[in-house]
């Protein structure tokens, strides 16, 4: 561990404070630069809340309406600000309510530290009131976890928690603190952690692999790059852009990589995956060199692995060695932070262009435009499409907004049709597919980037999974814009029922409440629209609003998201209808 500056160390030693574990915890958070945390109080965490009261000038606590809201808000905060998000809850149900968000943060590599209260250490294992073994429960879904039973452990463990959450491939850390450890007295001294002997956050780059990658790329005839969130997490946007522009290689994003490169860039061919764009999916199976950058070849990206890019040599730029050869075997693996590995690669690349190869992307885009995109963006029928709502949002936000989407059809439409001019602008639950993510995540995202416009795109189903967080908006005045793409269905499941279950719509019809009344009940300006001319005005009004705004848009009920790679099919078998 690295010590802070010498003078600070001495002055701290001079007046080694004897304080409670709870106060030590708060001082640790402040020392880590945390100024905002999300949480929900309860019995086993009350000593810490008592310290929040005393330290409210330095550390702002946002009371969510459910612990799941707290963790998703912390995730949204982390993803818009690039800092570590912090969520806090009590023992038992408080802790278990965090688990969905922890699993979400684990699979989407989001840096969060969760703090849970625990019953007194003398009661551990006695099935005490609100006792739950959150360490065992959270083990498979955390990067690291630890139960503190003595006040003296708090500074060292908290320092480790923040270091582990943010370093290397980021992820969630859970620290469980028994009540006696919160009450116990200890001498406080805080030293940030910068090293753990058993942990290698960023493996050393192997220059020979960089050279091998450069050679393969330089000799490629039809290369194709798929980038993922690793570009954003590694803050490697500039290096990535330089790599693409020098090499002249067409590229496409995964769901979580969106916004790392401008949607307007001529070499940006859109999104890969189940509901991605036609050209990048089809041409994955035609390229001769496939280059994955900061992505993990998730099954929603690859479709059937047996037929995925079998003709291509694969180069994988990846920070986590466990991802290499996990799903797709690579011919060259460049392990390391994309920022460093791409920078090392750049001088060895030839400046090239691939006009004929890029024409293929354009030709396939034309097919997708004619068959799908045009009808979605410029519908001739009376009913509103989800895509035209996104198109209008693009105009009003000028592609500068942070788009937070939930899970389902609206998520895919928002991801396919949103324009992005800057990075860190797309926040969604990718790997876990957590319905209810967007509303609380948008609250966190707004607080993590207060200067930016934040628009939550939610479905009528997912909205109601965490709808109580409208209360958090009311209490904090977070100026989140909420667009409900409302088709009175669990749309994505309904789409699958239509396509693969002979239209047997088992329990996907939603009888919805009046969302405008609900919004107004929470003192949020709210409007419902179902006509095209109203929509334009309403979106303008929403974006112009300085406060939170809820826009319930009634869209065509039985619309489908296309293109689509059916489960088990190959990326090149992507369907346009």
């Amino acid at each position: 561990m690295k010590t802070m500056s010498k003078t600070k160390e001495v002055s701290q030693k001079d007046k080694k404070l004897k304080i409670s574990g709870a106060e030590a915890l708060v001082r640790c958070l402040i020392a880590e630069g945390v100024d905002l945390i999300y949480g929900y109080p309860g019995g086993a965490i009350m000593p810490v809340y008592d310290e929040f009261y005393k330290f409210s000038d330095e550390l702002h606590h946002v009371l969510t309406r459910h612990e799941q809201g707290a963790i998703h808000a912390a995730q949204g905060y982390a993803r818009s600000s690039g800092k570590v998000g912090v969520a806090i809850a009590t023992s038992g149900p408080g802790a278990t309510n965090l688990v969905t968000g922890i699993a979400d943060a684990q699979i989407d590599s989001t840096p969060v530290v969760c703090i849970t209260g625990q019953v007194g250490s003398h009661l551990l294992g006695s099935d005490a009131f609100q006792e739950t073994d959150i360490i065992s429960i959270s083990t498979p879904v955390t990067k690291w976890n630890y139960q503190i039973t003595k006040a003296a452990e708090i500074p060292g463990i908290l320092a480790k928690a923040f270091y582990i959450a943010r370093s290397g491939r980021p992820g969630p850390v859970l620290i469980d603190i028994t009540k006696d450890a919160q009450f116990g007295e200890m001498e406080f001294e805080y030293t940030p952690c910068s090293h753990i002997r058993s942990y290698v956050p960023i493996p050393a780059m192997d220059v020979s692999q960089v050279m091998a990658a450069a050679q393969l790329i330089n000799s490629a005839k039809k290369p194709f790059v798929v980038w993922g969130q690793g570009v954003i997490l590694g803050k490697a946007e500039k290096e990535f852009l330089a790599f693409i522009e020098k090499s002249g290689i067409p590229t496409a994003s995964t769901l979580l990589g969106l916004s790392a490169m401008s949607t307007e860039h001529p070499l940006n061919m859109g999104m890969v995956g189940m509901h991605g764009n036609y050209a990048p999916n089809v041409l994955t199976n035609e390229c001769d060199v496939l280059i994955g950058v900061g992505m993990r070849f998730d099954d929603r990206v690859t479709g059937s692995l047996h037929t995925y890019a079998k003709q291509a040599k694969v180069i994988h730029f990846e920070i986590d060695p466990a991802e290499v050869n996990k799903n797709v075997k690579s011919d060259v693996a460049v392990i390391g932070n994309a920022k460093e590995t791409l920078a090392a690669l750049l001088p060895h690349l030839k400046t090239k262009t691939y006009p004929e190869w890029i024409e293929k992307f354009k030709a396939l885009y034309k097919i997708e435009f004619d068959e799908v995109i045009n009808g979605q963006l410029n519908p001739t029928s009376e009913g509103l499409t989800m895509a035209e709502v996104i198109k209008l949002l693009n105009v009003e936000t000028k592609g500068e907004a942070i788009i937070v989407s939930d899970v389902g059809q609206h998520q895919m439409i928002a991801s396919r049709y949103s324009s992005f001019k800057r990075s860190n602008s797309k926040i969604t639950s990718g790997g876990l597919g957590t319905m209810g993510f967007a509303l609380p995540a948008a609250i966190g995202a707004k607080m993590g980037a207060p200067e930016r416009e934040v628009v939550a795109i939610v479905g009528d189903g997912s909205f109601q999974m965490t709808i109580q967080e409208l209360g958090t908006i009311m209490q904090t005045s977070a100026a989140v814009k909420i667009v409900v793409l409302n088709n009175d269905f669990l749309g994505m499941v309904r789409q699958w029922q239509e396509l693969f279950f002979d239209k047997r719509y088992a329990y996907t019809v939603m009888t919805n409440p009046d969302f405008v009344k609900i919004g107004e009940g929470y003192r949020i300006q709210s409007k419902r629209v179902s006509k095209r001319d109203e929509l334009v005005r309403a979106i303008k009004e929403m974006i112009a609003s300085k406060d939170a705004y809820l826009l319930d848009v009634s869209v065509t009920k039985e619309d489908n998201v296309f293109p689509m790679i059916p489960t088990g099919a190959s990326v090149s078998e992507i369907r346009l209808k």
Partner: protein
Amino acid sequence: MENILYTISVYTENNLGLLNRIATIFLKRHINIESLTVSNSEIEHVSRFIIVAYMPEEQVKKIVTQIDKQVEVIKAYYHTNEESIFLQSALFKIKSSLLFDMRQIQNIIKKSNSQIVTVNRDFFVIEKSGRKEEIEDLYNELLPYGIMQFVRSGRISVSKDEMRISDILKKQLN
């Protein structure tokens, strides 16, 4: 793909909860652990797990990288039987009267290279270390006489190759 018996060696910090964390990596992939032993290693404060399981080579590679990426794991390796030196221990509890009544039992003990750990009026205990098959042979030989209790430990193993854990820890310190 062929299932092969692999010995996975894991050097770790000696921390609570790590056993659970490592076990879930197997559970998640529906791999049955044949045996598991945790002990001190040759390095102070460093624990060593020896985990034995059947799986294809492609899978053991993935499992080892998943174990290796855990924060408190220093290094994980996998070896085939040919690449390691290993044994297991077993204890047999037998009625004492048999030792005096049945000459054959004494022959069995001698022949099998096992040791008598304790003898008292009611029972005696035989300890046998070796390959799993040798222990099974002894078990089968003793079975007709009646075994009061039997227990076999997990595999312990050292690799023929060097592990270089001290080097890894030294490198990490710099």
